[in-house]
């Protein structure tokens, strides 16, 4: 042995190095190829949505009535629709609709849902019963139907779609937060906070909510995919942003009539939807594994 014996023994005694939580997170998150793949798609999606103006070959609203329902060609990589608009450009712009609706609706649902859940779980008793029954009532409807009904009430348009979807997605957040709150409030540090005179709101916001976050963050990522699918479903049925705006679901619906002649009109937007949802789901899975693998069975 060339090394000094003391060093050998010293190293031998030292405990194995502790990996920092951040490093572990990065290792686990980027550990699976599919998660990396999803991440790449997401980044691509963001870039596409933000830089749609530069990336789209044509103006998505530009009609070219001499060139309707064209099959894919070198000029129009994915062909044109019934009004001669370039399909590829419409798909690129459509990414904005999907992303905005997805994110905002989830944000709305999460905020409202988490507040309700927090209040219900924390105060318990009648508050809990009433709030939970309302949530159950919301859950008694299939999500699409609920969103459809609310959207029919409010009318079309981006804002209303977001609200409709948001409301229909409140239940999972409310329930999860409520469950977490019920569980966390039993902890000693919550009792301690009360003991030093912290008011209800303070306890809720500073002690319970932060500790409840990890599963909720995972839920948010997982549900973005569901939100995008729901938005596509709604626009497919005819409730969505007003034309001439580009929405993937609506594009599938329009293309349905011309399935025999120009199938790409329906196929292409659907592939876009699938890719995006897939990416969000894979990243969501990765996030869940990295934050807390124990959640694997539940979310």
């Amino acid at each position: 042995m060339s090394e000094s014996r003391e060093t050998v023994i010293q190293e031998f005694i030292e405990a194995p190095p502790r990996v920092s939580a951040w490093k572990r997170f990065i290792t686990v998150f980027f550990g699976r190829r599919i998660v990396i793949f999803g991440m790449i798609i997401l980044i691509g999606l963001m870039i596409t949505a933000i830089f749609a103006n530069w990336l789209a070959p044509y103006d998505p609203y530009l009609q070219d009535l001499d060139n309707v329902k064209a099959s894919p060609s070198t000029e129009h990589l994915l062909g044109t629709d019934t009004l001669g608009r370039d399909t590829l450009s419409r798909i690129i712009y459509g990414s904005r609709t999907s992303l905005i609706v997805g994110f905002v609706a989830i944000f709305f649902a999460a905020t409202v849902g988490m507040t309700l859940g927090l209040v219900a779980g924390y105060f318990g008793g009648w508050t809990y019963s009433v709030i939970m029954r309302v949530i159950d009532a919301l859950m008694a409807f299939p999500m699409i139907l609920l969103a459809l009904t609310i959207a029919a009430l409010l009318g079309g348009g981006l804002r209303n779609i977001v609200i409709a979807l948001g409301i229909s997605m409140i239940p999972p957040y409310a329930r999860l937060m409520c469950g977490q709150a019920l569980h966390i409030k039993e902890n000693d540090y919550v009792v301690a906070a009360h003991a030093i005179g912290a008011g209800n709101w303070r306890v809720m916001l500073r002690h319970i909510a932060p500790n409840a976050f990890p599963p909720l963050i995972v839920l948010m990522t997982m549900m973005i995919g569901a939100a995008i699918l729901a938005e596509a479903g709604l626009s497919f049925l005819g409730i969505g942003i007003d034309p001439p705006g580009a929405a993937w679901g609506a594009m599938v619906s329009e293309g349905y009539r011309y399935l025999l002649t120009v199938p790409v009109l329906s196929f292409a937007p659907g592939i876009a939807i699938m890719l995006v949802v897939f990416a969000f789901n894979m990243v969501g899975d990765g996030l869940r594994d990295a934050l807390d693998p124990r959640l694997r069975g539940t979310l």
Partner: protein
Amino acid sequence: MTTYIVRRLIQAIFVLVLATLGVFLIMRLLPGDPILLYVSQDEFTRMTSAEEIAALRAQFGLDQPLLLQYVYWFGGIFRGDLGESIFMGTTVAEEIGRALPVTLHLGVISFIVAHIIGIPAGVITAVRRGRWADTTLTTLANIGICAPIFWVGILLIYGFGLYLGWLPIQGYTSPFKDFWMSTQQLVMPAFCLSLPHMAGSTRQTRSAMLEVIRQDYIRTAWSKGLRERTVVMRHAVRNGIIPVVTLGGMAVPRVLGGAVLIEVVFNIPGMGRLAVDALFSQDYAIVQGVTLMMAAVIVLSNLLVDISYGWIDPRIRYQ
């Protein structure tokens, strides 16, 4: 156990009332007046006077105060009277009576297919973890969850219907009238409808089984010299199935919601399509009837799930 069931039942009824009340209010708050809409359809046949409009309103009970209208409607449920469709000239009960069996047929088949394929697939991926079967099935499941079902329907219509001509591309026939045609028509829609839950239950079963396989009692089972099949089927699956039951409960609203889209794509005269048409034409009564039905089915299935927990997991039974 009985008190448990009774308590759940009462909660269920309460939720049902709340849900239908909610829809009721939403429908009444909709801008637009169904009577005027209806009347404007008849614009070319005759002019309607203000009295006739008022009379129509009274006929449909729309001139009463809101809460009274709701109570009246709710009472009607027990008599089997759900009101009349303003547009179709039939009673709501009739329309629902026609549409419900169709959706039930489609839904039940989808539900069964989703589980028959999904659960065993999940078990296989867990037991053969990391190997070829796992990777393929898990990838398929991951893709299956992401595909928009109306789009898959359109793809299938194109492939099997238009291009290959193997299956009819739309419509619905009662299995009692023509079983073969009915089945053919149902293949594609049922597959599409079952897809999200098939994929979902594969993933969930896989998670549940992986969790179970790590448990100490599985190691005990191995140490007794049991063969793999026994350990998996008798010991692991029994425990792993518990979260899958919850998932089964969640499948019902998913299937019902999916039915809305699938029925539109495949032109199937079920509850979903009925609801969509009614919503667009603001046909209050129909919308309410449909939501009542769907909410009832969902609440009932949640109740069944809760009860079945007690049966499957003896620890809950003895609480």
